[in-house]
Structures are given as structure tokens and as C-alpha cells.
């Protein structure tokens, strides 16, 4: 089963909450005093204009940055300073704004890499690729094949990802994150640079992941249409400050959001 840290969280309960978090780089305030929560089983979008602090926020959740102020509570436990791999062990997986795959490896191997944390057989057996290590690999491969089937990327199984078009690389990256069987999946601009058809495919996959695996998803996205269609709740950041939080409809009505996106009349 999942090598997750804290106790199980029921669907609809708070899975992760961000409380009064501030982060600055020298004099630049990336995030100031932001609070929101992510509930188990929902799709939560973080939106905002360029430089609003969205990716920083994701990096904080991911454990890559540690906030100077405030705290992160994941599954009921306040999180201490930690490294990204602790977050990964804890059940948080992510994809990146700029695809971060092993370009020289095949799609299959990239997704298999996502299973690394779930491998338990020791170095000796893995070296021999025999006995428990082999049994384990077969088991992991089965899981990976399910993901390949899920994402409909059978035809690129043995293709080096460096040779794949961008849209497919994004899908492989999603596959690798899914291979970790995360409880919380962070997607940093999953549709950036995609054409309409690729966006629709990706949206479908995001919804399917949420529906089929029950994975909680937090995503950053620029395409408003996508965000409004996909997400259950949206938090809006501007210059590091939270300016709105609620359902897509509520957020659309918010004057602060309209101002942030369209500018204010002077």
C-alpha cells in the first residue's frame, strides 16, 4: 500500500492546509500571509497573473521551499522543514512547468522511475535482478502498464522521451507522477504550450485521474476556460497575496480578481 506518513483522511476533509504562509527571497516577497486548504478528493486550482507567486506556493507545498512564516499542515500534522523527497514519501507528487523528464530514457523507463520509492528489495537482489527483485519489478511493471493504458501512450512505450512531441512528454510526466500513487498531485501548468486538442485530452486525463484513482489534485493553470471547467475550488493570488478563494463561479464574480486580470481604471 501507499507509504504515506500520517493517518488516512476521509474524502471532503482537509488534506492539506496552508496557514499564514509567507516566503521572501531577500527583499522580494513571493508569498505573503496566504492561507487556504485543499480537501481530499477535490481539484483545486491556484491561479493568478504572472509573478503572482503560484509556482512558489507549489514549491512550498512540495517542500522545496520552507516558508519563513506560517505553517503547512498535511494530514493533520504540522510539517517540519523538509526536503522534496520527504514530501514524495509523504504522498505528494508533482509535474513541472518545463517538462523535467530523463530525456535519454524511454517513456516506459521514465514512468518506472516513478516507482523507485516503492521498491523494497535490497541492492544485492536488484543487482542480480532475480528472486524478490524480479518479482517486485514484475509487480511494478504491471502498475506502470496500467498507467500507460490509462494515459493511452502504448505506442510510445519504447520511444526515448527526448524525441517525443511536447504534448506527449507532458503526458509521460503525468504518468511518472501517477506511478508514485500520490495522495496529492501537484500539476504546474499542465496545459502550457498545448494546442486546443491537446488541452482537451489533458483535461480529460486530469478529470479521469481524479475520478478513477481518487487523487486530490492541485493545479496551476493560465487557461481560464480550463480552470473554470476542471476545478472544484479556485484560489487566486496576486503579487503574493490571496485575493479570492471559492468555487469558479464565486471567483469569476469577485471584483478583486477582475481588477487583477484586467487592470483597474484610474
Amino acid at each position, binding site marked *: 500500500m501507499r507509504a504515506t506518513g500520517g493517518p488516512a483522511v476521509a474524502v471532503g476533509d482537509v488534506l492539506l492546509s496552508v496557514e499564514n504562509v509567507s516566503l521572501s527571497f531577500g527583499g522580494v516577497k513571493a508569498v505573503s500571509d496566504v492561507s487556504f486548504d485543499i480537501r481530499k478528493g477535490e481539484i483545486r486550482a491556484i491561479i493568478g497573473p504572472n509573478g503572482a507567486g503560484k509556482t512558489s506556493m507549489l514549491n512550498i507545498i512540495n517542500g522545496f521551499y520552507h516558508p519563513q512564516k506560517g505553517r503547512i499542515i498535511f494530514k493533520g500534522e504540522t510539517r517540519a522543514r523538509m526536503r522534496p523527497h520527504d514530501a514524495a514519501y509523504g504522498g505528494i507528487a508533482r509535474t513541472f512547468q518545463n517538462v523535467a523528464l530523463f530525456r535519454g530514457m524511454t517513456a516506459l523507463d521514465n514512468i518506472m522511475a516513478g516507482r523507485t520509492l516503492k521498491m523494497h528489495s535490497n541492492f544485492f537482489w536488484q543487482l542480480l535482478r532475480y528472486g524478490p527483485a524480479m518479482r517486485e519489478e514484475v509487480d511494478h*511493471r*504491471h502498475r506502470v*502498464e*496500467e498507467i*500507460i*493504458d*490509462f494515459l*493511452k501512450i*502504448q*505506442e510510445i*512505450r*519504447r520511444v526515448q522521451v527526448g524525441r517525443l512531441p511536447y504534448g506527449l512528454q507532458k503526458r509521460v510526466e503525468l504518468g511518472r507522477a501517477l506511478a508514485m500513487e500520490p495522495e496529492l498531485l501537484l500539476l504546474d501548468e499542465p496545459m502550457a504550450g498545448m494546442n*486546443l*486538442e491537446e488541452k*482537451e485530452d489533458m483535461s*480529460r486525463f486530469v478529470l*479521469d485521474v481524479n*475520478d*478513477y484513482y481518487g487523487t486530490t489534485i492541485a493545479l496551476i493553470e493560465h487557461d481560464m476556460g480550463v480552470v473554470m471547467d476542471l476545478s472544484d475550488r479556485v484560489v487566486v493570488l496576486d503579487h503574493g497575496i490571496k485575493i479570492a478563494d471559492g468555487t469558479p463561479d464565486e471567483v469569476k464574480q469577485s471584483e478583486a480578481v477582475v481588477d487583477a486580470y484586467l487592470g483597474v481604471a484610474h
Partner: protein
Amino acid sequence: MAPNVAAGADTFPKLLIRNANIYGARPAMRHKDLGIWQTWTWSQTLDIVRAYAVGLHRLGVKRGETIAIVGGNRPKLYWSVMAAQMLGAIPVPVYADAVADELAYVLAHAEVRFAAVEDQEQVDKILSVVKRVPKLGLMLYDEKRGLRDYDHSRLRSIDEVIKDGRNVLDDTAVAAWLDYEIAASKGTDPSIILYTSGTTGTSKGVVLKNESSIRAAADTVAFDKLTENDVALAYLPLAWVGDHYLNYAQGMVSGFCTACPESPDTAMTDLREIGPSFYFAPPRTLEQLLTRVMIRMEDAGFIKRRLFHYFIGVARRYGERILNGESVPPNRRFLYAIGNVLVYGPLKNVLGFSRVRIAYTAGEAVGPDLFSFYRSIGLNLKQLYGQTEAFLYVTAQPDGEIYSDTVGPACPNVDIRIADNGEVQFKSPGMFSGYFKDDAKTAEVMTPDGYVKTGDAGFFDEKTGHLKIIDRTKDVGKLNDGTLFPPKYIENKLKFYPNIREAVALGDKRDFVAVMLNIDLTAVGSWAERNNVIYGSYQELAGHPLVYDMLEKHVSEVNRSLAEDKVMAGAQIKRFLILHKELDPDDGEITRTLKVRRGFIAERYAPLIKALYDGSKEADISTEVTFEDGRKGTISARVKIRDMKTVAAPAMGKAA
């Protein structure tokens, strides 16, 4: 194998039982699932289909009713066909990539109450037109993904239906009832309704009967000596007569194994893994394969490239003669054998052709170069000519009598005659019994003495005795000066150039011949890359002056070849243009089987056609396009037109 292969089995379910008896442990079907090839033997297949049939009966499927089959080549959909036939119901396969409109038409016309569908995509498509299909009750799906939150009052998973049937089948009374139902089916009952792709207007439902289908398949199985040890990959549309005949009917008759690809996009890899012994590919697929090979060779290292071109040269000179069993000097044979080890063998292996014993191509004219390339590397590629109305085969080339410009002599037990207007007419064992609910159209294509009009113009070649097809009878037109104008003949000459993907020739009741071309993005794109031609889109590349220059050369070569034949010399191309978008079945410009729809194109591109004939140098066009999900958009462009020089016709005496 016994020659009288279909003895005692006049329906497909009875054939299935026979296969389970005599080939029980042989594989009937393979499918790659989660990266591993799964196999079902004939006896397992029979078990599943029996259970499935009982499950269907419990859902209310009755004898004589139609069941739509919508999706790709997957075992469960083939089993759906078998299970329906077992109950005496009639399967109606529908093209998986049909847009909602076409789907609605077929489902409504065939009056289906049930539909076996592949996945959520097809379910969504049917749900979007469900109002137009009032009789439709239940949909049975193969892939459950994404369907969890759907209203299941009208949905069942095929697995559940099979499971339900299996539970009931334990009762011997039910098993006996099923045996009785199977025995009650007669050879004269319809076995399937195949809807034509509709080159002209809406599609028609071709009704085929059990016994005649089996007889036709038995003839060609014997003709090509297919046995239970053969393997075929079913990668062409399930709803197409070719797949139903070549894989389903021939598989049932001969007991060979049909392998289903993992997904539509993996066919290439699956082909290599399965290594089929019987293979069919439309000329277009063969062309794309060759283009891909050639492009990859351009990128190969110096030594490999030299080796490849040298031995392909050897193969071009001697390969075909060796394959045909003609005499070739021993030292040349030896050279060819070395080439086989170094080049042809590995190449065929990469393409998945290593074990192919018989390969067919049909549907369009095949380029002589293309055809002889595959034959020269040792692939036994042959041509056949057929129609849905004939249940595929009308003619086929026997081993050893292969020509690139004929389609072969009549198949066993097929009668062919040429009508006065040049039309090919036939009478065959597999021929259809009529169009579904359309006696008027049936009467149109049947002659009073029982021959089927093909609508194709052709003649028997005097030298070989083989049939040659020129064009559709109704498409052969005349220029204003009376010159004969067979558009397809000209288009095919153009399309033999790898850079030209599609061509539309105009000229009937006009002063001269003009053509509209589609470039091939793979070939021209690769050329652009090597020649530093920068482009951002298909449209931009198509309009590039250098691309125009290149195609101008092709067109003038075609003119030269047309000029060699005195009948055709007057039909040389005077003007041409390159279209700004690819002709697309989603826009109705070509059929699902990629045949050009002339009338529709003439209407859609009227401004361009006007410009071709009024002497303009360019013309503006704006066309509506349909995306895969059915939404619409528009593309507009300014298209340039080039004038061509024509070649003087040869002296009358010389042209023979």
C-alpha cells in the same frame, strides 16, 4: 487441410463450433493488453461466445434484430459479432471514427435496439445523437473507464453480460436451448449488414448472407492456401468489408489466428511482434511505410546508406524475377542472397513482414514503383479488386502472375463481363442479397439477369487476360473539344509522386484539364528540413514558392507521360494549384476509405475552380473545417495558381 473446408457449416456459429472441435487448442484470437499478448483458443472463444449469446438473449436480443458494433479491432467486439450471429441477430458494424451525424444515420437506418461499443468516446457520441435513434435501448461497452458516473439504466459492460450468461449456461436446459437456436439458423439468413463508406452520397447497408459469405471465403482460402497455422493482424476498420472478409470470414473458414493491435496507433509495433503470414494494406499505407523508410535512410550513416541503395538497386533488377520464379544467373542470385541477409531481411523484419506469405493491396491504383519495391525485397504482394457488394473479391492475382497495372483474373466461381459502356459487371458466390430497406437502389445496381454493376470502367488486358480498371464509369468525362477525360487516371499518375498526397483533376465539360493538389506533409516536410525551407504550418508550406516549383516539375513529367498516349495527349494539365488544407474525411471531402468526393469538392472550392478557368494568378478561399469532436472553425487563405506548358502530342504513327 481438406478442400471442402466449410462442409457441414452453413452459418458462422456452426463454423465456430467446428473450429472448436478440430482446432480447439489452436489460437483463434490474440490481443495485447497491458503490454502482454493475451491468447484465446478456438474452444475458449466458443465458450465465451456461447455465454455472451445467452447474456444477450437475457437482455432481450431477438432473432432477426440488428445490433450495432461501434469501435476498433478488439476481441470483445468480434465476439459481439459472433454472439449476435449465434442468436440469429444481425450485427451492423459502424466505423469507429465516424462523426456523430454519420453514426446517427446508420444506427437509425439499421433500426438497432442494441449497440456494442468500445469505450466512453463511442458512448458519448451515441448519447449525443440518441434522440435521432429512437429504437436504441441498451449500450454494451468494452472499456469501463470514465463511465462510472454515467446513468447505467442504458449501459452494461460486456464482461457483465458474458458473466451473467455463463452463470445461466450451467443449466443444461439453457445449453440445449442455445444449441437449438444455433441449429435453427439457416445459410440463407443474413449474417451481417455492412454499410458502404458512401463515395457517392449517404451510405447504403449491404446485406450479406451466411452461406454465400462462407462459400466466397472458402474459395479464396483455397486460392491462397490459408490454413489454421496462418496469422493475420486486424488493424483496418472493423466495419470495412476488407476486415470482415479477410480476417473474420477467412479466419472462421480456415481457422487462422486473428491478432488485434493494442491500440490503433501501435499497429506498426504490433505487426512486428506478431509477424503475420497474411497481410493486407491499402496502397496508401504501403506508400507511407516506404516514405518513412526512405526518410530514415536519408538520416542513416554513410556506409549504411550506400549499402542500402546498392542492394535495393540489385533487388530492383533481380528481386521480382526471383520471386516470380523466372531464370536469373546464379551469380546474381548469390548477390541477391547477400542483399537479403544485409538489407532486405532486416528491412522486412522492421516492417513486420518477415513471415508474410501472402500480401494484398487494393482500393486504389498502386504506383508501379511502389508495387515493385515491395515485391523486389521478397514480399509476395498481389492485387485484388473487389467491392462490399461482392463481399470483397471479384478478381485477384494468382501467385506468379503479378502486374502492377492489372487487378488479376476473375476469382474462382466469379463471372465477369464488360458492358457496352465499358462497365465491369460480375456475379459471384459471395454477392450481396440487396441493400437494407432500399429496393430501389438494389434494383439500380443489379442487371435483370443477376449481375452486379460495379460502376467501374475497365477492360481485359489482351496480353495477360487480367482485368484493368480505369476509373468510375460515371466519372469518365469529356473536354469541350471531345477529348476523353478520366480524372482518376490523371490523379493517380500525380499521386505516384511521394510529394503529392492527393490530387483532384477537373476538366469534364471544360476547355482544358486543371488540377488541385495536396502535398504530403511527411515527404515535403522532410525535404523542407533538408533544404532550409522554414514554415510554420501546413498552409504555409503548401503555399511556398519552392514547393510550387517542385510540384511543377512533377506535373510536367505527368504531362510528358500523358503525351505519350495519343488518346490522352489532349488531356494534359494546363494549370494547377496547391490547396491550403488537407482533404479530410471529417469535412466530408474524402470518404473514410480516403476516396475523393468530387461533387462536394467542386461546390466547396468553387472560387478556386473559377479562378483556375478564368486565368487569375491567385484566388481567395475560406473553408469551414470540422474538428474531431465535431466543433467547426474556418480556414482562409490566398492560393496561387501556376500555368503549365504542355508537350506536343507525338506523331500519329509513333503513338501505339
